[in-house]
């Protein structure tokens, strides 16, 4: 099963999004969060990201797709990935998708038992997703 790790500079964004994703896609898909810094400020934290990846795996995720809110999270993410060996890293993928839309699409795709490739592709679709109906 594919799990999601939601990385945001804000703990509230990450946790709120996890609630929303759980309500839309169901609670069977492991979704964990790394929001803010360890001392509760806005920012990202390599140890929190690393812990969130491990938590997703502990919750049953064989593969993990990571979604981030802003590109500056990537620096922390790269440090966090140093905690994992090559075999583990091969089952961890980073998505370039917009966080909210990507998380929803990925969670629905993961909930139907899709592969990491399929879940990553679903998330990537969020980049071109229309929200205002064409009329």
């Amino acid at each position: 099963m594919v799990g999601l790790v939601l990385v945001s500079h804000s703990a509230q964004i990450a946790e709120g999004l996890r609630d929303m994703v759980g309500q839309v896609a169901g609670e069977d898909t492991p979704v964990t969060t790394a929001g803010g810094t360890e001392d509760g400020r806005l920012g990202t934290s390599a140890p929190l990201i690393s812990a969130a990846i491990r938590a997703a795996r502990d919750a049953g995720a064989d593969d993990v797709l990571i979604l981030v809110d802003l590109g500056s999270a990537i620096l922390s993410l790269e440090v966090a990935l140093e905690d994992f060996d090559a075999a583990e890293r091969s089952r961890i993928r980073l998505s370039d998708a917009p966080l909210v839309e990507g998380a929803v699409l990925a969670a629905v795709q993961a909930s139907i038992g899709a592969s990491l490739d399929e879940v990553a592709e679903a998330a990537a679709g969020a980049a071109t997703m229309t929200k205002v109906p064409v009329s």
Partner: protein
Amino acid sequence: MPEVSFVVLDPSGLHGRPAARFVQVASRFESAVMLRSGERSANAKSMLALLSLAVKPRSEITISADGGDADEALAALAAELGETVVPTQGGTPVVPEGGNPSPP
């Protein structure tokens, strides 16, 4: 290819959780499942495609399935939609005995 049509009663149309449930149920079947709304049609196994249809409340949707388990897929999807839709025949809502197709 079997198909069924409904008028959507859910005040939010087909979004969020209902759309996700639709994808989850459709994905249990081997048949290709399409959902048509107006002139546009979407793969019912794709959340992105369903959301992009932007199905509005009180609009008509048609679900079609193509494959060995098409009838089962349509029955399961109709059951999933439940009371959030009213079946239609030729664009006219089928009013159940003593029922009222209007949303609350």
